[in-house]
């Protein structure tokens, strides 16, 4: 059911949500979190789709905040419940003075006593630490890859890092990191050098290089390729390279010295999968923190050592 409310307020939206849920016979839903998505009209469709699919794994109240143009203050909402939509989806369009006070609209719509996650699929507010909406959330997701200058964006993330931040360019690395860690488990040799190959301006590759640098304490070189995404990681050992190459973004070949080459599915994942993965753990990602900070301070020592075990289990 889709209900459109024009010139509305938060309390009207809340009472309509209750009313619609009742009229549907109050389906059991057990929503576990509130996901706030801040985007503009151009990112709207893909963000909505990704969040609805992610909502199947994590039933949530999804609040899509769209800042619309127009000088007159105004608040319109679109409520989507049932008919294949998991949980509740509310699209909120704010204009004028209302848009300057988004938290006042969103705060009354948060689910009781449950985690709040915010996701900026595109543009991230310049001063995230003082952003009203960011303060409502315990987990904040950005995506440097959506920025025209990804590495600059990542460095900005590192500078204003607050526990609970994540960037989806880091989430994209999870299978790569798992595979690399597994390779070193199988073949625990001393690594002399590492190279990461990717298409230009790939923030994930920058993070992967930083992660390897801080974990292995070796020099990591970056090389540009035609992509898509990260195409290869080579770790040099005395007996030859441990090499994972993925030229097509789908299937990787995995080579360890003295063992036959093997194929590994290493598909580039879409937003939905990234979002689902991020929503699985809601505590701060310490390894991400160290890695992203190492992009600005040049060492990977930031962060709390005692929590490293958990964070490494994320890989």
């Amino acid at each position, binding site marked *: 059911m889709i209900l459109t409310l024009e010139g509305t307020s938060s309390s009207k939206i*809340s009472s309509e949500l209750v009313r619609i849920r*009742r009229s549907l016979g109050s389906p059991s839903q057990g929503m*576990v979190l509130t996901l706030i998505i801040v985007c503009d009209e151009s990112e709207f469709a893909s963000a909505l789709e990704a969040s609805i699919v992610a909502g199947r794994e994590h039933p949530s109240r999804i609040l899509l905040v769209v800042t619309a143009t127009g000088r007159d203050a105004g608040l319109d909402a679109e409520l989507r419940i049932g008919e294949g939509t998991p949980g509740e989806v509310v699209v909120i369009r704010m204009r004028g003075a209302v848009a300057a006070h988004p938290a*006042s609209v969103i705060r009354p719509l948060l689910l*009781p006593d*449950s985690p709040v996650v915010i996701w900026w699929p595109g543009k991230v507010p310049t001063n995230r630490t003082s952003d009203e909406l960011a303060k409502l959330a315990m987990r904040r997701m950005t995506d440097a890859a959506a920025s025209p200058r990804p590495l600059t964006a990542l460095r900005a993330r590192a500078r204003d890092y607050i526990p609970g931040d994540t960037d989806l360019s880091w989430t994209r690395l999870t299978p790569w990191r798992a595979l690399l860690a597994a390779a070193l488990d199988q073949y625990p040799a001393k690594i002399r050098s590492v190279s990461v190959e990717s298409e230009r301006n790939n923030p994930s590759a920058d993070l992967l290089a930083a992660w390897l640098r801080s974990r292995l304490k070796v020099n990591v070189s970056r090389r540009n390729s035609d992509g898509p995404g990260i195409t290869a990681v080579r770790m040099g050992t005395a007996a030859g390279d441990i090499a994972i190459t993925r030229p097509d973004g789908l299937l990787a070949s995995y080579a360890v010295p003295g063992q036959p080459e093997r194929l590994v599915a290493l598909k580039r994942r879409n937003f939905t999968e990234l979002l689902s993965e991020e929503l699985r753990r809601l505590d701060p990602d310490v390894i991400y923190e160290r890695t992203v900070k190492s992009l600005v301070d040049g060492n990977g020592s930031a962060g709390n050592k005692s929590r490293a075990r958990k964070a490494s289990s994320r890989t």
Partner: protein
Amino acid sequence: MLVIFGVTGDLSTKKLMPAVYDLANRGLLPPGFALVGFARRAWAREDFAHVVHTAVKENARTPFREEVWQQLSEGIRFVPGQIGDDESFSKLAETIADLDEARGTGGNHAFYLSIPPGLFQTVVDQLRSHGLAEQHPGRWSRVVIEKPFGHDLASARELNRIVLSVFPSSSVFRIDHYLGKETVQNIMAVRFANELFEPVWNNSYVDHVQITMAEDIGIGGRAGYFDGIGIARDVIQNHLLQLLALTAMDEPNSFEASQLRTEKQKILAAARPSKRMDIHTARGRYAGGWAGGEKVKGYLEEERIPPDSRTETYAAIRIDIDNRRWAGVPFYLRTGKRLARRVTEIALGFKRAPHLPFAQTDTEELGYNAIVLRIQPDEGVTLRFGAKVPGTQMEIRDVNMDFAYGEAFTESSPEAYERLILDVLLGDPPLFPQHEEVELAWEILDPVLDYWASLPEQPEPYEPGSWGPKSADLMLARDGFTWRRP
């Protein structure tokens, strides 16, 4: 027969008259039921009937049916007059006597005083001198009064003295519409009809209780009533302390009014505010700004509020109950206007499991178990516990199991006033606080009010649409808790 004083008021048209109609429509009113309005208007009977008709059509919960209206309208009368005027009351007594004859009401009368407490004395004196308050065997004469039941212990006692000088205690019905709510009554059903909850309903398992009643609106047009009174008197003294009593009381021997009252009085007598009022109370006043997507005025900018007003619009207090069941369990009561969302709930927070056989990081997102009794608007019960997040890792997170009251039963819940009016007519008073309860509640609140009155500063401002002032967060943080986001 129901006689309403102050029948032109908001409460009367929005709640009382529709409730009377809804009762008639559900076939719950006796056939001889009559409704008499008394007010300072030069209305004829037809005018009043028209007012009732409009009120019913606009505000009744059940569909409008002509035949029900016919039945009701036959018994409607209006008496224009002044409360201090002897002649008006003679007229009223006549009208009532006529109706007794014509409708066969059996001489049973309920007087509903929907008027400011300052006028009670005059009205009850008038009722007595015109013989309307007399108790005869086989007939009843009852008086119904609305909150506020005084503004402190002394004034509450005075009010009780006035009413009790004319009516016996068992004939005085104090309406607290909150107690007529289905979900409030459901507290007793959940607690005493089940084996599941009562064993853990004590200080061996519960470590704190939060009772919240939040409104997202400001004071609106109630400046005249609200300023100088404040939200603690308006809400904590009656609603929140009654909810506390129902939550904390022991099981009554039966649901007879006297049994229930005994248990409620026991708990209220054992309850006291924290001795350290400087750290265990908080008060605030909403500032201007944006709330819920609308620009709103601060309390001081509301119409007819003096700039030096010290009235609070947010109040939070800690109550301790000195008995075996609850010793050591703080009860936190909070209420406020212009908060983020309109909600009333009681949340019992449970202790952490004594041992967690998981890695610390696995349970990092695990909060505390809770039973939440949702009173309004989304009535029901929530059970909160930890569960594993699907996936290969052992990651434990809080989940909610919900019982939604509105949908579990097909019959839509009656309005609180329906239930209460019916109880007045039936003379069934378990839901009505008696004067002892009212006085006990003031004994709990008075020290807090005195403490606040002694403070030189004004209440702390808080952002509209937020969850109250910083001092309230601090108050819980000191005890190692945090307020739920309700």
